[in-house]
């Protein structure tokens, strides 16, 4: 009995040490970025482990004014917001109908969207870019329109929304499927149209999974950069991530560390705030799609 007790204590100690080490490996680098963002440039050439000497908030002003972060920040907000709006307006009705109505071709569409989950956006970056640039060339030749599809924030948002449709429809459908049929039947008896039933009865009931979709896709759109980098060559249209990537590459030559870390804090903060607000929803929402073991 005694030996097993010391065994348990030993085991617990080892686990705590392992857990704390892993936690530190996350807290230290992230915290370090926050500290580095208020360091003066000269401090970067000394021991990286020293704390900042003072609160050098000039970095943030420089990042916003000199490195154009305010512009990028605004662009990111615009693209993320429009993409989320597109996604919800398009995916919600589709998910609802696909999961609760029987019609011709329904099975085929369900299979298509299901397969779409496994198609990765990373494969499609270049094909989508070329498709849009060809469309631009065509428009230029036939109508004399300069550039419509590339360097267009609305188009970028639409591509974001379209490429996350499959997963979103899957997530929402599996929730709609669990709702009982009685609600719709009652609504029809009361003479509500299909559209009204959907918008004012079924959508409000799907709130938890809609919230999950918004959370996940906000993070995905806000942090995305491979597509944004390829489709938006115009520096005025850069999103925050692309702007930061540029700053990172420039930093190797120009040594504007302070601005870079200030920029990193700016890109992290919104996601952190969101995470703190809805941390429970986010870590539990992962199973909302029915990936139960």
């Amino acid at each position, binding site marked *: 009995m005694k030996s097993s007790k010391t065994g348990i204590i030993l085991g*617990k100690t080892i686990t*705590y040490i392992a*857990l704390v080490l*892993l*936690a530190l*490996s*996350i*807290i230290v680098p*992230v915290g*370090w*970025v926050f500290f580095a963002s208020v360091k003066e440039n000269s401090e*970067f050439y000394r021991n*990286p482990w020293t704390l900042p000497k003072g609160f050098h908030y000039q970095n943030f002003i420089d990042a916003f004014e000199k490195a154009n972060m305010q512009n990028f920040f605004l662009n990111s907000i615009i693209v993320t917001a429009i993409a989320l709006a597109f996604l919800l307006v*398009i995916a919600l*009705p*589709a998910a609802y*109908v696909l999961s609760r109505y029987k019609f011709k071709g329904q099975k085929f*569409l369900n299979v298509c969207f299901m397969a*779409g989950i*496994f*198609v*990765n*956006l*990373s*494969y*499609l970056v*270049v*094909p989508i870019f070329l*498709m849009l640039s060809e469309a631009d060339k065509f428009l230029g030749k036939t109508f004399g329109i300069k550039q419509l599809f590339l360097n267009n924030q609305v188009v970028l948002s*639409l*591509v974001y*929304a*379209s490429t996350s*449709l*499959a997963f979103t*429809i899957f997530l929402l459908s599996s929730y709609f499927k669990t709702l009982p049929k009685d609600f*719709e*039947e009652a609504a029809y008896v009361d003479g509500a149209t*299909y559209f009204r039933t959907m918008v004012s009865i079924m959508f409000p009931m799907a709130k938890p999974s809609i919230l999950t979709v918004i959370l996940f896709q906000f*993070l995905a759109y806000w*942090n995305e*950069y*491979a597509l944004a980098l*390829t489709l938006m060559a115009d520096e005025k249209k850069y999103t925050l*991530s692309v702007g*930061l990537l540029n700053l*990172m590459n420039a930093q190797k030559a120009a040594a504007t560390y302070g601005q870079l*870390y200030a920029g*990193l804090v700016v*890109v*992290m903060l919104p*996601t952190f705030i*969101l995470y703190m607000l809805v941390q429970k929803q*986010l870590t*539990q929402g*992962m*199973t909302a799609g029915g*990936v*139960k*073991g």
Partner: protein
Amino acid sequence: MDKQKGRGRFVFFCVAPATILFFIFVVFPTINVFRMSLYKWGGFSANKSFVGLENFKNLMKDAKFFQSFQNTVLIIALVTMVTLIFALTFAGILVRAKMKFKNFFRVIFYIPNILSMVVISAVFSAILDQRNGLLNGILSIFAGKEVSISWLGSQKTVIYSMVIVLIWQAIGYYMVMYMSSMSAIPESLYESADLEGVGPIKQFFTITLPLIWVNIRTTLSFFIISSINMSFLLVQAMTQGNPDGGSEVFLSYMYKQAYTNGSYGYGMAIGVIVFTFSFGLSAVINAVTKRDVIEF
């Protein structure tokens, strides 16, 4: 309720926008990847020429492609194994053992998942930097002399550095996933095991693992797909394939060929191989790990 007028129209208007956009931006580009792999085309010029399987034949002679292949396979294997073991162990401990700060750990471990790959690569560039890096800083303290290892600059270490970053990034996500399926296992199973004197480690292997096996299998496919994807994003932001292809992976090589290098058809041929490879590997792993489903 099927008799109400306008049902067909309603269904159409709900489904059509999603279907059309999905076909334009997902299905059509995917088909294009396969089709264009048979062409020689720069991407920007008008002259496309059908070359059959020539792109694939050239790929077989391309040493850079094999290097990216090797790197990708190494990343998939290492990231999957290490992350799986850590995530399962930590999830098992946090769900079963009466630990303090359980929720705190869960919240912290998930943080890498909400970070942009740009942030992650900036952070790790700073950690792994040869001159002012945090890691060399720590090592110098322990070694008692100046340590100056070029983690990202040498062929030997760069790929392992990337593996560590990817594991760091993934553990929390999978841990949270396993935790939620583990907590669905009824307490009574563990109680009766306790009564019979079965220890916690044996309980983990005889109760927990078999009961979440379906979930583990699903995540294995996730591991393959996301390793291929994440390694691409990491390379794009952190190493650009340097030094000399040492960190090049499948999709970064594809992007380089198709976009930067202007050999679109060739790039798409790489895409086809990656596609086939990831699906094939998922199917094989799915078949190998098939067990009878145990319900609780």
